[in-house]
């Protein structure tokens, strides 16, 4: 089922979690007074005995998740992204990442997607933190179809996973012919002269930028790296070796996220002209979501201009 009407990604997560709970009796859900925000309320209603609310206590949220996993359950631990990686950072590191427990950390409000609450509620650094934690699998979901597809795979994957979601309203950018695999990048457009690498709901803008580039006579490849860790090195190197010009686009600080991961890979293996489109190491502010993305350098035109610029440099 493809979602063509604009809908919040978290709403699909809430529905998909119930379906997962029906298919997998080991799935339990833990929340920290955010069931209305993370959309785990439907799971709570359907499986009250498998739902735990620890209140406004994010450290304990993470610890309880780790403990549940030791008792043989598959806990999905939910709250805002920044709280999971910062407030609950030590339990995340020690009890989940270091202890390698089977905890699924599901981060709501990724990037600017909690826009009206202001910079304190926007997660621009979460991926930098989790990417630096050994043992973690890090996934960034872009649309409804992907959330529904990936959730059962995440439940079946033994070990800690960080899944970044969004409150943003999105339409599906994938069609049902696409099969996702954790750890494998998904090529969405191929044969370009420049490679756009992205993940998350901002992928919709990336595809529009690719269209615009096409109109300007610059065919662009689009590679979706939904699994930030482990990074699909082979797919990225194979794609970039044909274009030799790269733009990464992420709803995150350009320090430590997708752009950094790709840059680290390329600088050691295939140095090519590259630009990182994303938040330029500054805090956001209150404002409408789409306008914030534009204001903070993640506009479609920003992507187009970055692609044009790296292409010029690659031709030198």
């Amino acid at each position, binding site marked *: 089922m493809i979602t063509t009407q604009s809908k919040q990604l978290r709403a699909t997560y809430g529905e998909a979690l119930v379906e997962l709970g029906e298919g997998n009796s080991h799935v*339990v859900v*833990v929340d920290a007074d955010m069931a209305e925000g993370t959309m785990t309320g439907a799971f709570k209603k359907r499986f009250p*005995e*498998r739902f*735990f609310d*620890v*209140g406004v*206590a994010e*450290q*304990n949220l*993470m*610890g*309880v*998740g*780790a*403990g*549940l*996993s*030791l*008792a*043989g*359950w598959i*806990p999905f631990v939910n709250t805002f992204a920044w709280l999971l990686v910062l407030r609950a950072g*030590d*339990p995340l590191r*020690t*009890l989940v990442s*270091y*202890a*390698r427990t089977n905890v699924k950390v599901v981060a709501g409000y990724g990037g600017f997607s909690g826009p009206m609450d202001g910079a304190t509620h926007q997660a621009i650094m979460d991926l930098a933190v989790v990417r630096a934690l050994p043992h973690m699998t890090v996934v960034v979901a872009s649309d409804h179809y992907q959330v529904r597809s990936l959730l059962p795979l995440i439940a079946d994957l033994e070990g800690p996973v960080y899944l970044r979601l969004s409150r943003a309203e999105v339409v599906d950018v994938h069609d049902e012919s696409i099969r996702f695999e954790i750890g494998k990048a998904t090529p969405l457009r191929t044969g370009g002269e420049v490679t756009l690498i992205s993940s998350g709901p901002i992928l919709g803008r990336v595809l529009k930028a690719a269209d615009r580039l096409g109109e300007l006579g610059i065919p662009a490849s689009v590679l979706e790296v939904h699994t930030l860790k482990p990074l699909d090195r082979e797919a990225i190197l194979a794609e970039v070796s044909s274009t030799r010009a790269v733009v990464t686009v992420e709803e995150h600080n350009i320090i430590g996220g997708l752009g950094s991961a790709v840059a680290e890979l390329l600088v050691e293996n295939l140095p090519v002209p590259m630009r990182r489109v994303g938040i330029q190491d500054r805090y956001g502010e209150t404002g409408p979501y789409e306008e914030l993305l534009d204001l903070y350098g993640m506009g479609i035109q920003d992507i187009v201009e970055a692609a044009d610029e790296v292409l010029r440099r690659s031709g030198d």
Partner: protein
Amino acid sequence: MKPLVDVRSLQRLAWELRLDALQMVFGAKSGHIGGSFSAAELITTLYFYRARLDPQNPGWEDRDRIFVSKGHCAPIYYAALSRLGFFPHEELASFRQLGSRLQGHPDRLKLPGVEMSSGPLGLGASAAVGCALGLRLSKSPSRVYCLLGDGEVQEGIVWEAAMCAAKYGLGNLTFVLDYNRYQLSGAVDNVMPLEPLEQKWRDFGFAVRRIDGHSIEQIMKALDSDNLDQPALILALTVKGKGVTFMESSSAWHGRVPSQEEMAVAEEEIQGHLDRITSVHDGRKTVSASRERS
């Protein structure tokens, strides 16, 4: 595993564990003696008398789960695990050595018998609550125990976990608090007073039992008092560095390593305790070393 129910055997074992721990820290020139010694009887009684475990099958589904949240007491913890048979006793000599399974703080992925990696204070309380929730959901007969330090309960997560345990009425959960009154930088009462500690735990919804944490009988009795729908806290009054006079009730011995001369004095004093128990033990012909707990 057959539980050890003889008080004198357990007393003796606690002193043997102290000797092991002392030698480990002395050998590694690193580690925590004070908080190991205060917990000796608690760990001994919990592991050898009360808990249902199978060292031959560390992952046995119906085992009791023990979270040693005060992970810095690794020396005495490892000593207990080795004497239970989770790994060879000789391996204690590798404590804090490069490549050892006996890490500075416990690593559940490396060492059999370690339920959860610990060290950063407070986290074990939270994991124990989650585990107790999960076991109850599975209708498991297992109980969950969590050993906490007193400085440790200054951590906010402990109280987050406590609230949660009370909310869910976790009768399968027992916290054991090693109240030795000293933390790294000084007396708990000076660094950050906890009193009225018993009242705090009662107010947080726990059934509290205040005991002498060096009395095997009192620990046994407290551990045997089950609760139906309320988490329990055993407030164990202990002495930091218990057993070596110059180490007792001193924050200095939280993480200090004895010199060669201090080591000789400490070993002699602990050996003296062991000899006294043995001589009394030998005088009582009827005491059996070990029998099945009824």
